[in-house]
């Protein structure tokens, strides 16, 4: 007899959904999370230490001491972290680490809540575009039609606001969003007119935010600290205030935070029986369960599988095809900034309200593409560091006057580019470096496929065109160079497929070699769309968990 029916590892986007669906179906669930349960105050409003601007630290984990990773020096365009032989040793807030977050809710505690459905073409990229040399581009084994009902569930049950009538790049919705779009900030109105003048499609950006009171919580108060911070009104819908409380309210779920899963435990026959964990006091414990769901995020799920090798699977669980950890992808974020003659900033948060899907597909000579949207409110120091014109004065009275006159006139547009996966962009483990628990750390290597960089250059040019059409008198910015991408939008490391030689999980996200081991996070994404991934992660987790219940 096992301790629990199911153990879910990780309380972020995917793990929250899995725990809620399983617990509400009457299964006893243990939800394990390595990070803390962070209050609004604990997240804080430090403009130099947050998940959006992590200059000296961040605010949603993991702790910057004791959680290192290593990376090949040439995987990143600038020298990052500290030298460790030929490698670089990174702390979690440093560039190159590929962090999302570690706390109850993970990234959803502090995210922007942009809530995008992928497009039908995003699920069949290889069929649409063929196979670029050196890439591992493939179709998903499921389609948009398989996902649509689960997108709708996420929209209604977790809570997404938007205007389905503007989502003209997608097949018609069966149901509108449950809440209207957020109010349009002044600058978004200007950018909307810019798009109209170009004849480019525009839409209202759907968000996991209560635009009006919903699910017993209040509506957004349009503050200036959305992306990178916790919501002062509790109107932003993350796992910590939606799916995790739902799981707990069912009476069937136990949440244990500050507990690190060290490895998956197996029987002599190789069946997964549970987990070994290390708690905050450093105590090691084991828990058994009939079903295991891994929701550690794409980087840490791969690490856990690789660190759980057995006699039967000596290179790691689910890794007989040498696929675990490959195809790491996230999103390149090309964009541009511009200076406008009139004040753009009106302080109405969150900010990103208007976008265009004109360039997600059908671009001559480009594989995929992405959407472009206007930006969430940018804090003063973030503007200074990321969006300041390269030729403007940086010090002296002229610089002070420039900030004073133009902080509210500088505005940027940007968006995620669909990355073309490379099998060499990879998570492995580094047995020579251990974290504070004594567990071998993640080692990162490789880079994105060159086609990603080409798409990003193309989108950078479109961003400049849009800004000029919106009335910018001057635009600037550079397209990104080639590097290893993952980060907050990490995905792809345990790809979904029919064949265990080329994928890690089956079309219901079950690890091929096991009948009781599932993955519910960004790892199974075969490709990651030209959209922020979280609604897809949640929808896929819903489908996976529902199927686990159905087949129990």
């Amino acid at each position, binding site marked *: 007899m096992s301790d629990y029916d199911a153990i879910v590892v990780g309380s972020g986007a995917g793990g929250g959904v899995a725990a809620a669906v399983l617990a509400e179906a009457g299964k006893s669930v243990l939800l394990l999370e390595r990070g803390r349960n962070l209050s609004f105050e604990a997240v804080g409003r430090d403009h130099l230490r947050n998940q959006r601007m992590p200059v000296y630290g961040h605010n949603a984990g993991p702790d910057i001491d004791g959680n290192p990773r290593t990376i090949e020096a040439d995987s990143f365009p600038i020298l990052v972290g500290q030298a460790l032989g030929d490698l670089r040793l990174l702390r979690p807030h440093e560039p190159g680490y590929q962090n999302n977050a570690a706390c109850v809710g993970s990234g959803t505690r502090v995210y922007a809540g942009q809530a995008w459905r992928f497009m039908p073409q995003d699920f069949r990229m290889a069929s649409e575009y063929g196979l670029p040399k050196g890439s591992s581009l493939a179709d998903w084994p499921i389609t948009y039609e398989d996902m649509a009902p689960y997108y709708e569930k996420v929209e209604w049950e977790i809570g997404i606001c938007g205007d389905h009538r503007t989502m003209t790049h997608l097949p018609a919705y069966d149901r509108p969003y449950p809440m209207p779009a957020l109010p349009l900030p002044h600058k978004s109105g200007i950018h909307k007119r810019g798009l109209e003048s170009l004849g480019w499609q525009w839409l209202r950006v759907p968000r996991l935010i209560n635009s009006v009171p919903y699910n017993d919580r209040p509506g957004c108060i349009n*503050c200036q600290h959305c992306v990178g911070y916790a919501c002062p*009104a509790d109107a932003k819908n993350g796992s910590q205030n939606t799916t995790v409380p739902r799981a707990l309210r069912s009476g069937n779920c136990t949440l244990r935070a500050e507990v690190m899963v060290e490895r998956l435990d197996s029987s002599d026959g190789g069946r997964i029986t549970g987990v070994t964990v290390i708690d905050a006091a450093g105590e090691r414990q084991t828990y058994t369960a009939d079903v295991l769901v891994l929701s550690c995020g794409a980087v840490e799920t791969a690490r856990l599988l690789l660190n759980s090798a057995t006699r039967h699977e000596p290179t790691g669980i689910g890794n007989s095809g040498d696929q675990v950890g490959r195809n790491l992808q996230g999103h390149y974020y090309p964009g541009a900034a511009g200076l406008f003659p009139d004040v753009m*900033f009106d302080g109405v948060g969150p900010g990103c309200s208007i976008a265009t899907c004109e360039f997600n597909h059908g671009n001559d000579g480009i594989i995929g593409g992405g959407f472009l949207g206007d930006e969430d409110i940018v804090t003063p120091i973030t503007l200074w*560091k990321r969006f300041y014109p390269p030729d403007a004065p940086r010090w002296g009275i002229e610089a002070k006057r420039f900030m004073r006159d133009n902080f509210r006139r500088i505005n940027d547009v940007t968006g995620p580019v669909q990355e073309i996966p490379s099998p060499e962009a990879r998570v492995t483990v580094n047995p020579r470096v251990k974290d504070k628990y004594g567990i071998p750390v993640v080692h990162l290597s490789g880079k994105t496929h060159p086609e990603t960089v080409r798409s990003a250059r193309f989108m950078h040019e479109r961003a400049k065109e849009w800004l000029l059409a919106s009335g910018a008198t001057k635009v600037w910015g550079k397209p990104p160079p080639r590097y290893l991408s993952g980060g907050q939008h990490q995905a792809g490391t345990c790809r979904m497929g029919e064949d265990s030689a080329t994928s890690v999980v089956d079309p219901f996200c079950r690890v091929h070699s096991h009948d009781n081991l599932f993955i519910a996070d960004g790892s199974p994404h075969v490709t990651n769309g030209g959209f922020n991934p979280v609604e897809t992660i949640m929808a896929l987790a819903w489908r996976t968990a529902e199927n686990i219940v159905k087949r129990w």
Partner: protein
Amino acid sequence: MFEHTQMKCLHALLDTIIPPDDYPGAVEAGVGDYLQRQLAGDLAESLSSYETWLADLDAEARAVNGTDFADMTPRERAELLTRVETGVVKARWSIEPAAFFREIVEHCAEGYYSDSGNGGNRGGIAWRMIGFEVTG
């Protein structure tokens, strides 16, 4: 951390990077406090570079003007820093003058424009100046 002459030099430097006008300069806005805190924490490894760079700046001021940097007029200080920024120096610097100046400018902006919880932007004065209002 810094002894008296170093502190004088640092404050004169910060107020040349973000000078007072009808809004406070760097020092009055608390950027000195921001830096003290950072140099005892996240930027501890930069402390010795700061000390060296400030000493070199004073040496440069003496070579050019015959006085310490802090005793120059604001206009003279700005002119001197313009030369430092482009690497045109008279004294023998033991640290690359221009590159570290850029770092100091960045730290100064961090103190001035980030949240006052970090020690600078006292009372939110910098945000008031540029029009970043926090409503919720």
